[in-house]
């Protein structure tokens, strides 16, 4: 019959019109400012630097300014300047730290390659997306202080990934400790036998982290510095 196709179409739209009142599958709008949709855990926006000690964010940056992420970043939007002096990091071993660590968020496309290539898990992807500012220049160039966020915040936004990262880090530290203990024991044995033998240079493994002091007990409810919006 001539009009049957049109009638079928009209029936479909009628079903949707009626459906949108009772069937949630047919009413997909989330009215944003009032109702915020729960983002999946792996959602990523601009990166941030992880610090181990919650209270003083600049205290224990995991980043050792090895500049791998600066080389690997596709749009070259990370800018690092190494520090001259060394500062003991969370594990007590004197490490370099980045004097200047700037990410130009007007260029960064949040592709998370820096997170992938960072051997020290020092940089992770943030989930904060309400960061619009009116100033097109300086506000988009995030410096070290604005980027640093505590590990507890990382646990809060990505529980599974954070747990897995921390597990790996502690395992590494334990392995490093045994090696250091074994090296120390070997050194003591060597020292005990031939007194004047040259003192073995403590071969600290160049890799990752040195034996750590007991991990700072996760403070009960560390005052998580809410990621306040940078001053407009």
């Amino acid at each position, binding site marked *: 019959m*001539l*009009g*049957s*196709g*049109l009638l*079928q*179409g009209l*029936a*479909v*739209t009628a*079903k*949707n019109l009626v459906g949108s009142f009772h069937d949630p599958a047919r009413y*997909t709008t989330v009215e944003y400012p009032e109702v915020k949709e729960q983002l*999946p*855990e*792996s*959602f*990523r926006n601009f990166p941030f630097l992880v610090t181990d000690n919650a209270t003083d964010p600049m205290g224990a940056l995991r980043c050792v300014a090895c500049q*791998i992420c600066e080389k*690997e*970043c*596709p749009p070259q939007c990370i800018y690092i300047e190494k520090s001259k002096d060394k500062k003991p990091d969370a594990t007590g071993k004197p490490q370099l730290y980045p004097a200047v660590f700037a990410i130009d968020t007007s260029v960064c*496309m*949040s*592709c*998370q*390659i820096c997170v*992938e*290539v960072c051997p020290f898990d020092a940089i992770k*992807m943030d989930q904060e997306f309400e960061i619009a500012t009116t100033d097109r220049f300086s506000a988009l160039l995030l410096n070290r202080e604005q980027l640093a966020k505590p590990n507890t915040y990382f646990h809060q936004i990505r529980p599974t990934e954070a747990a897995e990262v921390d597990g790996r880090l502690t395992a590494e530290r334990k392995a490093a400790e045994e090696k250091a203990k074994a090296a120390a024991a070997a050194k003591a044995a060597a020292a005990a036998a031939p007194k004047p033998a040259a003192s073995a240079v403590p071969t600290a493994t160049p890799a990752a982290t040195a034996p750590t002091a007991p991990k700072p007990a996760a403070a009960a409810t560390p005052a998580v510095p809410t990621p306040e919006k940078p001053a407009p």
Partner: protein
Amino acid sequence: MSAPSENSPSAVRPPSSGADPSAFPGLTSAPGSNIRAVNDPFHGDLLEVSMGPHHPSTHGVFRMMVTLDGEVVVKLKPVFGYLHRNHEKLGENTTYLASMPYTDRLDYLCSMTNNWAYALAVEKLAGQPVPERAEYIRLILAELTRLLNHVCLAGFLLQDCGASGTPLMYAFREREKILDLFESLSGSRMMCNYQRFGGCRIDPSAEWLDRVRALVAGFPRFLDEFERLITGNEIMMARTPGVGCLSPKLAISAGITGPMLRAAGVDYDLRKVDGYGIYPRYKFRVPLGAHGDTYDRYMIRVLEMRESLGLLEQVMKDIPGGPIMDPKAKLRGLRPKAGEAYGRIEGPKGEIGFFLISDGSPNPYRYRVRPPSFVNLTVLEDLCLGHTIADAVIILGSIDIVLGEVDR
């Protein structure tokens, strides 16, 4: 020393006089087309209209210089390059890994298939094996991207036909479900940057795979409703059949690939021809059109969606365990031996290929993208001649172009 200064050397006909149809061998004049290029005074002058970069129905910054005789298209010159950012020069100045996020921005609707095509090309160049589980995940993501792209096309085509947004909204409602899956897997809805040379970046959890099974189960119900809304619709039956007929001979000669080629009746699907990934192990059919017109191009995509759903159901049953990434694969310092490789896959829009020449350094010497939309546009003028301007809009919609890929 730069090239000869003036850019249109005498050897070539001055660009201003458009290509008269005789210069194109194999150009079949469209049915009922009385092409009258000359301004003959009695019939009134031709109307030169620029359906320019800001036109609401050109799917992005694409411009058509259309010469109209009344309503009938007499001449049509596509003009693009508005979104050209020299993707290939970028590829030559960065490492292999750093180009991966840029491939998301080629055909920004199907980032997973772009990633896979680039990863396939580099793996072919460097001879990098890929573990079993990664192949399965890649196939699942590619078929999900095909669903997403074909749903988008159906929505946009109806929008060009004039249906005020309703089919487009239903299509986007389904697309959002697939994008949510991509987001929970790779972290971003459209810019996934998920595949690496030798496997994938993140191992999908069992819960994610269940959500894919749920989506695949629910999709046919939406497809039936969508077909009821559109396919039997008399106005759709009047507007699209017989519009923009593409002959198989011209399609093959013009290098058309993808659903547009199969709508013209040519049986050529890279998943069957090249047999890359694990496609040969599973049974799926390739629908073929008979007339090659806009209606066939639309129906072929709807039938392909059903085939993809069947394929997904088969694949989801036996996903193996094992590593997601080849352990020996080097993430950063990839320096493939000197040589060249051309890898291609069956993207939703057609054959997307990457041609890489390496000279042993971490940066590719030549990084070439073969985009399906760019080549499929070759026949746009042949399809539109003789039709009215309303048809030219639909024909462009049925070719399914994305300007990020056309302009690179």
